Structure formats: structure tokens, C-alpha cells
């Protein structure tokens, strides 16, 4: 992915010159002729680096930097001055404003480019180190919202795949709760949001889901409808989650009879492949997002599945595509792809590889659970 640099200078000639230098070296540039223009761009783009002139009509570079520092969303974007005003006092003032560097415009272009390359490389390495540390801590604490293995059953084969967005844990969560030899609950949820924020809250939802299932099962209650209704009321009552919403799909496998039940809350339909069908079937649950209202009215349904047939539970990232720079959500496109893979008798592993790799560009966490009747 090309890194974005926001260039700010009132001199259009200079702007075009640096834009050419940077774009020909793999960067994606946004240019602004004034601080106001730059601030307008920042409303819709978050660059990886801001390079700004100092002397500009209206607001100058220092004022621009001060304004950015006052805003949480912008204060941590690496910032450097590129200017022809290079007296000691100005350089010091610029650096005091937490600018990473203060570069003279008459510096040879190759040096400027190297400085920017090195700077972005250092930022990237710092980020990777921090990410790796947090991941390590999560691993040690056994904080896992995607399990290590799927249970092995007599009548069903379960495969699952999850790919996080930009290599950061996200809001998709999967769980398999095998309560006894007969019943296994399969959980796929998606906390609305991305990256760490969503990841953090996925554990709150997972804890509630596990508890709701266990408590109902203690009373010999295997009704998905009742489990979801109880779960929803608890989530709704939790003030910490008042602003956080999650979708949820629950499938209950009966390994004795081979039957399947399903209920959901704001989740995408469960898809089904049948050998002699012309397309994937789908089963749509009727529940709304967990926690939105106290009474969600969740009902369950039976899904008939024969030997060799497959069910697919998916998160919304699976139906998000970026094609020619345009993002879109398209379940029909996903269904068509998956159906063609199945018709061509591709293996599960090949399907997984092609589904995940063939995304022109992943725009969210992606999860799929494949349940095959064997």
C-alpha cells in the first residue's frame, strides 16, 4: 500500500516538483496551497507524513503545526518542515513544535527523499515493535478471540479462517463451545469497528456469550432463541457496552442426530452449498444487533443439511471488496465466487486461499466458518 504524504506550500511550482519526486519514488501525494486547504484534506485523508512550508500567506507553517497538535486525530502524524527560512531561531521554533525535522529547501532532492524514506521506515519499525509487544502480551494472557482449533465431530467437519485487517487484531470473533458429546455451539461475531478498539470489546461479548450458553445448558435449555434473548438483555444492560454493538451468529450442531439449528443478531445470512443447485442458498436470521434494544425478539430455525453439503458463516469483511480503488459491499459477488469454487470441486484449503488472496484489497477483518456434513 502506497504511503500518503500531504505536501503544504503556497508555491505551486515547488509543490509540483516535490510531488513528482515523491510519486516517482512510490509515494502517494496530496497537495495543499494553504493551511486551510491542508486542513480540509485532513478531514477526509489521514496521511502518513505531513511536509509543510513555513512562510505562507494567511496561516503559516508554525500556526498549522500548533493547530494540529491541539487535535488528537492529527497530533501524532509525523510532521516536518521544508522551507527556505532557515535561521537558527526558526529552526529551533519548528523543532520545539515537535516537528521531526526542519529541512532547507535547497537541500539536494536525493537527500530530502532519503530523509523521508528513513523517517517513514523508522516510524514503521517503531509501530511494528509496539504491535509485536502487544500481541506478545495478549498471547501470554491467553486473550484469544479466534480459537486455535476446531472440535472434531462424528457427523460434521468444521474449518475456519480469519484474516485481520492490516495485520492487527480486530472485532471478528469465533468460538466453538462443545458442551457435551452431543451438542456443539459455533459462534461467529463481529464487533462494529476495526483494529484494537473492536478487539478489546470482543472479549466482553465473548464472555457474555459463553456464560449465556453455559447457564442455559445447565438448565438443559438448548433453545438458541432463548439464549440470544437472554444474552441481548444482559448486553443491553451493560453500560460499558452502551455505545458498542456486535453482530452474532450461533449455529448449534447435534452430533447425534446430525441436525443443525441457527439464530442470529444482525449477522450476515448463513450460506449453503448443495450439489445440484444453481447457486448458494441462504438462511437469514431475524434478530437485530445485540444490545440495541432490551427486547430483540430473536427466533431460531432448523437448517437441513445432507452428507457432502456445506454451510458457511461469514463476517462482513468477506463481502467487502475494493475494485479499481472503489470499495463496495456485495454479498452476491461473494456468493458467486464461492459457488464457482465449489462447482469446480476446489478443496477447502484452495477455497480459503483464493477467497482471502483474491480480495483485490482487504478492507476489514474477514472470517469464514465452513461446516460440512460428513
Amino acid at each position: 500500500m502506497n504511503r500518503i504524504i500531504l505536501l503544504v506550500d503556497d508555491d505551486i511550482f515547488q509543490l509540483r516538483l516535490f510531488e513528482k519526486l515523491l510519486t516517482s519514488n512510490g509515494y502517494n501525494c496530496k497537495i495543499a496551497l494553504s493551511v486551510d486547504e491542508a486542513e480540509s484534506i485532513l478531514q477526509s485523508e489521514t496521511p502518513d507524513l505531513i511536509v509543510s512550508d513555513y512562510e505562507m500567506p494567511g496561516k503559516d507553517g508554525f500556526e498549522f503545526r500548533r493547530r494540529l497538535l491541539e487535535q488528537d486525530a492529527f497530533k501524532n502524524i509525523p510532521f516536518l518542515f521544508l522551507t527556505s527560512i532557515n535561521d537558527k531561531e526558526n529552526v529551533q521554533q519548528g523543532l520545539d513544535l515537535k516537528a521531526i525535522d526542519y529541512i532547507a529547501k535547497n537541500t539536494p532532492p536525493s537527500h530530502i527523499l532519503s530523509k523521508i524514506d528513513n523517517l517513514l521506515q523508522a516510524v514503521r519499525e517503531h509501530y511494528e515493535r509496539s504491535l509485536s509487544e502487544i500481541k506478545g502480551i495478549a498471547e501470554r494472557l491467553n486473550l484469544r478471540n479466534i480459537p486455535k482449533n476446531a472440535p472434531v465431530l462424528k457427523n460434521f467437519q468444521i474449518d475456519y479462517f480469519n484474516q485481520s485487517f492490516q495485520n492487527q487484531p480486530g472485532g471478528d470473533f469465533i468460538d466453538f463451545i462443545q458442551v457435551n458429546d452431543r451438542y456443539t455451539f459455533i459462534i461467529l461475531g463481529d464487533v462494529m469497528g476495526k483494529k484494537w478498539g473492536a478487539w478489546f470489546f470482543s472479549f466482553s461479548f465473548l464472555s457474555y456469550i459463553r456464560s449465556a450458553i453455559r447457564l442455559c445448558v445447565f438448565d438443559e435449555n438448548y433453545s438458541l432463541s432463548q439464549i440470544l434473548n437472554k444474552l441481548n438483555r444482559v448486553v443491553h444492560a451493560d453500560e460499558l457496552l452502551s455505545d458498542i454493538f456486535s453482530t452474532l451468529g450461533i449455529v448449534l450442531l447435534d452430533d447425534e442426530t446430525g441436525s443443525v439449528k441457527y439464530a442470529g443478531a444482525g449477522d450476515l445470512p448463513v450460506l449453503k452449498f448443495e450439489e445440484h443447485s444453481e447457486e448458494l442458498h441462504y438462511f437469514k436470521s431475524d434478530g437485530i444487533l445485540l444490545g440495541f434494544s432490551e427486547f430483540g425478539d430473536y427466533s431460531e430455525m432448523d437448517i437441513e443439511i445432507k452428507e457432502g453439503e456445506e454451510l458457511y458463516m461469514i463476517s462482513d469483511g468477506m463481502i467487502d471488496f475494493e475494485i479499481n480503488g472503489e470499495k463496495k459491499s456485495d454479498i452476491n459477488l461473494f456468493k458467486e465466487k464461492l459457488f464457482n469454487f465449489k462447482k469446480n470441486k476446489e478443496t477447502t484449503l484452495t477455497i480459503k486461499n483464493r477467497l482471502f488472496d483474491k480480495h483485490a484489497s482487504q478492507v476489514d477483518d474477514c472470517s469464514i466458518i465452513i461446516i460440512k456434513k460428513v
Partner: protein
Amino acid sequence: MNVTKQNIDDLLILIIVDKDANLTKSENFKEIVFKEIESGSTKIIISFEHVEYLDSSFLGALVAILKKLVALQGKLTLIELNNDIRNLFELTRLDKIFDLKNSLDTAVEGFK
């Protein structure tokens, strides 16, 4: 987040100018609308005329806004959603909780 505002009597109309309504903008958008609600606006229309793609973070922000308005006996109507976004609302039952209208005129009618 680029949002333009206009008022028709006590109705607040917010037009999202960006074509991507995503994670980087969802929190800011929620803050903008929450401020409007705290200033007394409880009848709100949000236009998605320019929006081509909406991610789950932004959907979460919309649901939080709706929940806040419902608690205040307010009303939220979303208008001019493209087919992909409308399908996403229908697929995930969000059409059951949101009032979706095709145009500003029909939305304004709905508030009368």
C-alpha cells in the same frame, strides 16, 4: 469528516460529503452529531448522497446515534443510500431499526 448542515424548521439535515464513511471518520462523525443532539436537535436527517462505501465502524456510530436519539424520544432518518449500502442494511436487519427514505422530501414528510 466533511459534513454540511442545514435546517428546515426544527429538522437538522446533515449531508456527508465524503465518499468513504469509514473507521477514520466514524468517531469524529459521532462526536459532531452528539454535539448537535446535546444542543437540542432531536429530529435529524442524514444524507448519504455522496457516500459510496460505509464500513462497520461507521455503521456502529450510526447505531449509537440512533440509540441516543431514541432514548430522547427523537427521530433519525437516513436518506439517499446507494443500492449496496441499502442492501447491507437489509441483509443485517438494520432496516428494521433505521428509518430509510429515498429523498429529502419524503424524509421531511415523515417528520410531519
